[in-house]
């Protein structure tokens, strides 16, 4: 893939293709678990994939509850699992 983008997820470095969503790039890297839930601390991943369900929310560059399935990766982006 051309146009490789590198970004961080929970402190670790990952790469993905330009235009890929955060969720897609992480799944391509084998990172299924995007966050843990607030109450049951259950792992969650992508579910609807089109911005409806908010299951894939992560903190991106400090802003909480961003939908990983909608936001495209960019260089040096810092992605963290939300609460």
């Amino acid at each position, binding site marked *: *893939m051309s146009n490789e983008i590198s970004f961080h997820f929970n402190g670790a470095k990952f790469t993905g*293709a330009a*235009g*890929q*969503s955060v*969720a*897609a*790039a992480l*799944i*391509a890297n084998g990172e*299924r*678990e*995007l966050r843990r*839930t*607030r*109450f*049951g601390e*259950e*792992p*969650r*991943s*992508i*579910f*609807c*994939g*089109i*911005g*409806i*369900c*908010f*299951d894939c*929310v992560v903190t991106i560059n400090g802003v909480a*509850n961003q939908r990983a*399935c*909608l936001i*495209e990766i960019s260089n040096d982006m810092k992605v963290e699992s939300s609460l």
Partner: protein
Amino acid sequence: MIIVVGAGPAGLAAAKSAASKGCQVTVIDSQPRGGGQYWRHLTAVSGYKSNRSAAYLKELQQNKLITHITGAQVWSAEKLGDGYQLNYLQAGVEKKISAQKIILTTGAYDRTLPFPGWTTSGVMTPGGAQSLLKGHGVVAGKAIVVSGTGPFLLPVATALAKSGAYVEIIEAQSPLRWALSPLALLLNPGKFPELMHYASAIVRLKIKVSFGSAVTEYHSGVAQVSKVRSDLSIRKKNIRNISADVVATGWGFLPDVTLGGILGCAQTLDRHETVVFEVDKEQRASAQNIWIAGEATGIGGADLALAEGAIAGLSATGSRIPAGLRWKRLTKRLFAKALQRSYPVGGGWQEWLRDETVICRCEEVSYQEIIESVQELGAEDARTSKLFTRAGMGLCQGRVCSRNVSDVVSGTTKCAVSRSERLAASNRPIAAPISLGVLGDGIAG
């Protein structure tokens, strides 16, 4: 100027037909590229006749009368004089656009049903798997069970198999149900080659297909398949297990009716008790100068959306609607009705649940909590149950669970869900989250 909300088949058809009459059109859409969920970003992996979209996308890019606003999430809408204003977010900045006339083509999303294990990673919607593949070039898993009901399972399953995944299709309904709709089949001969296209792909790709079954539980990488009746109640539990790292499960679609609801467009229920918009024969909504086309008026697929979009675009420019276009819409609507008859979603899925099965994914409300809100606290409808349990109050605002919560409450009270409850569940004054800072900065004056 006319605003078209949505750049899927209906929106593109509306823009094209309105522009063909010399009208300025602005297409506003949340995705980075046109095409909508169905014609999502054309890559190497294409579905049946997806080249058809090329002409529409070319129009979107090249017609000087059409402006395309991408990555725009409309969060609210207001009536302004004799027109409308849409407030939207683009890259975190709030912008406004107004026009006298609006065509809404807001599309639909996968309907899902809960089952034990449906919140574990690996379970996603067919739309989600499709978007990963077509939009981002990522195959969701190595062994994928595509389950649920409806024809959309076919393009998803074949595309995933083509990309190298092992795929099985678990369809809940019997194909024999199509015999209930002979006229619709007769009037839509074009559907046969499409069916053959997928049938041959299934054979070629060695996709195993089961009918009358459903994935009723998933854990530790194993999908448990049960035989189900047409109302989805269990005929025979756990007839077999399939090792799978992904279960893509969907039960038809739910129209996105949020924006039209904010603008006061009258809604009604289709035969699946799904909330859709009421439109007249020119796709006019009940609110003045608003037209609605595509899935938001009832799930019917891309062909129907194209016809409805074209009619809406013509009507909005005050042009005559050719009889051929009306006929096309009529036959596609018949087909849509046949689809609904062939792929019903009954309430039997409640048999699949365990007490602890999560119904509301956002607020992690279990099946048992909803039952208790009815039996112990006296909730008699979903609204009251939600106030007690917080089901449907989370980030997705009940888009995923509100229907299921209503059904669980009704399954407990043994009273049918009222029409007003179904309609009220789709009422969301804020169409998309907006930060308080941006919201407050937008004060007029």
